[in-house]
Structure formats: C-alpha cells, structure tokens
C-alpha cells in the first residue's frame, strides 16, 4: 500500500467520512497516520468535535490531523509579499499594488495555488515522520488539476530561470551586473527543488495512490470511470474503491427491495468495470457521521486493512 492516499469523489459521497474512518483504521493498526483536510468547510473538526486548525495536531494514539485553509494560506503568502513591497515602494505605487494584492488574495486561482503549495510543503516535510498521509481532497476535477500542476509549474520555472540567467550573463558582458547572488534565481531554484521533490513522491506509484469514494448509483459509476481514466493518464494509480452508503437488506418494502436489487447490479458493474486492488463496501448508517458513529465506519476499514 502506498504511503500517501488521496481520497477523491463527488461532493457528498462521503470523502470526509471515509478518509477519516480510513485514517482511524490505519492508526488502530499501529501506523502513525496524518489526516489532512483540504476542505475549507473544515468538516474533519466536526468528526473529532474539537478544532484542528493549520498545525499538525495529535487526535488519538497514532492519529494526527491538520486542516488546510486555502484562503488563509493565500493571505499569509500575499501579505508577506505586501510587507516586502512596503519597504521599497512609494506609498502612491503601494496603493495601486495593494488593490492588485487584495484581489489576488480572494481569487479562486490563488486559493488553488495556495492549497497546492501547502500540500507540497506537507508532503515534503511530513513524509519522513509518518507511516501514512491521508488527504481528504476536493472534487475530482480539482484534484487532477492539482496533480498536473508540477509539470506546468516546472516548465514555467525552468523558462524563467534560463531567461534570468541569460539576462544576467548579457549584463555581465557589458559590465552591468548588480549583485553576487541573484535573489530571483535563489527563489526560483528553491521552488524548483521543492517541486521536484514533490513530483518525485507524487508520481511514484508506490508512494502515492488514489482512493475513490462513490455510491452505487448509475451516474457516479460513469463519472468514476472517467475520473479513473483521467488519473491513469496522469500516471496516478487508483488502487482503492470505496462504495459508500450501501443499503441494508430490507426485504419487506417493495420500494426498498427494488432499490436494493438495482444497487446489486451497480455493485457488480463497479467490480467488473473499474479496475482497483481493493474495494471496500461501507453500509449506510442510520445516523450521520459524528465523533461517536465514525468508529463504526472505521471498523469496516480496519477489518480489511
């Protein structure tokens, strides 16, 4: 089993519940596990009924949690840029720049980039200290974009670095060079290094794998098939399927009997049509997932882990 597990799937299928239950299951097996929430709604806090926040926090034996808030991360980063700018720019120009920076803080593009940055940092920093890192991720399309970013960003950085080096060497030729060490090249090469580390981890099948959560219904099956294809295209292995909210065997009622029959067909289609190493079948519980009920779900994972 891989070291880093991304949970994907449509909104509402049970990613947060299942990734949390899965992480609890891993920790019960004695694996030191970090559960990372990337959902701004912060629903893993609810499942532990305590605030978790943006620092790694011990939740129970072998289980740690952290919640990434993309807007907060983007604000931190951009405000640091703002402070640096203030030192060198005139107040008049600053006024103009401030508007652009404020707009950048709230833009969805920034949140995605900030999230990606924080995920890269976490993967690099925590990879050594944990046996498993479980990500409760955002919806599929978002995840695919996230995973394709290293390639895009890598090309961009390389292009910037070569242009910067060329400019410096040309300026040297006419004796117009400024400093010994170029701060821009320093920043770019640090970014490049981190990106390569993260890419090496993320593109390694033995390190990173994907768990897809879906419900046994027609639409989600088609969507999951597409998503699995897409991930495979990015060389990401979908090793695990979690079929969540499986109906109980209810014999009396005609309506539910019919539903259950249909569900069995869909389950068969999932098992035959989507390639994965493990399939977990998780029942629909009477209650919503809370601190108390999540352990029942965790049992279904730990049995087969």
């Amino acid at each position, binding site marked *: 089993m891989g070291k880093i597990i991304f949970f994907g799937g449509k909104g509402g299928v049970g990613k947060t519940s299942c990734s949390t239950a899965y992480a609890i299951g891993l920790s019960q097996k004695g694996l030191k596990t970090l559960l990372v929430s990337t959902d701004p709604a912060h629903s893993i806090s609810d499942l532990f009924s305590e605030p978790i926040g943006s620092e790694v926090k011990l939740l129970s034996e072998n289980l740690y949690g952290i919640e990434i808030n993309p807007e907060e991360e983007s604000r931190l980063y951009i405000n640091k*840029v703002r402070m640096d700018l203030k030192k060198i720019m005139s107040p008049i120009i600053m006024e103009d720049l401030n508007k652009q920076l404020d707009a950048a803080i709230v833009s969805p593009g920034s949140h995605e*980039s*900030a999230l990606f940055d924080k995920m890269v940092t976490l993967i690099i920093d925590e990879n050594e200290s944990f046996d498993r890192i479980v990500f409760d991720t955002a919806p599929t399309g978002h995840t695919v974009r996230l995973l394709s970013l290293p390639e895009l960003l890598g090309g961009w950085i390389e292009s910037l670095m070569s242009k910067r080096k*060329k400019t410096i060497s*040309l300026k040297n030729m006419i004796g117009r060079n400024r400093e010994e060490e170029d701060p821009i090249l320093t920043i770019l090469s640090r970014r490049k290094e981190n990106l390569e580390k993260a890419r090496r981890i993320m593109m390694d099948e033995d390190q990173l794998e994907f768990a897809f959560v879906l419900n046994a219904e027609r639409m989600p099956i088609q969507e999951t098939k597409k998503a699995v294809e897409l991930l495979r295209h990015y060389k990401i292995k979908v090793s695990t399927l979690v079929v969540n909210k499986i109906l109980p065997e209810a014999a009396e009622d005609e309506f539910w009997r019919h539903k259950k029959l249909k569900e069995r067909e869909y389950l068969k289609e999932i098992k035959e049509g989507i390639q994965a190493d493990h399939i977990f079948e998780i029942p629909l519980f009477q209650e919503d997932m809370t601190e108390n009920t999540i352990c029942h779900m965790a049992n279904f994972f730990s049995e087969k882990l």
Partner: protein
Amino acid sequence: MNALKEFFINLGLFFQGAFDMQQRSRGHIENEANDIMDQFMILCFGDYLGIDLPTSYYALELLPYLAEDLENWQSRMTDKKSIWEEKGAKLDMDP
C-alpha cells in the same frame, strides 16, 4: 494547458527570430538583455496585460524584486505601440 505551453514556445521562437539578425554590439547586447527581461516579465506578470496565466500566484513572491522594473515595463507595454507591433516591425525587416 497545451495552449499555454505552445504560448511559451512561440514566445521564445518569436523573440529568437528578432535577435538573430542583430549584431552583437554593446547597444545590441543591452537591447537583447532588455528583450529577455521583457519576456521574463510577461511570464511573471502577463495577467496585468490581460494574458491569463495559471502561474500568476507563484510569480507574486518575485514582485518585491521586480516592482521597480514592473512600473516601467507596464507603461512600455501598454504604450500605444505594443511590444508585439514593435517586434513585428523588426521581423518585417527580415529580407
């Protein structure tokens, strides 16, 4: 994403063409350095010119080191003669 890659490549080729016919005199070296710097700025802050780049966020941390150039660059770029026309004119002189 492919469109963006293509844009990067074309940008490089486009400017490349403009350089090759230049003599390597001091003035030309200076011009070349400025041109490359312009490309660098486009890759970083193209969104200020209306070029949508998914990398904009990551360029922000370079801003404190480029802000002084940025103002100058921006006004040059938004000048009535755009950089594209300027480079286009140079290319047209190619026999």
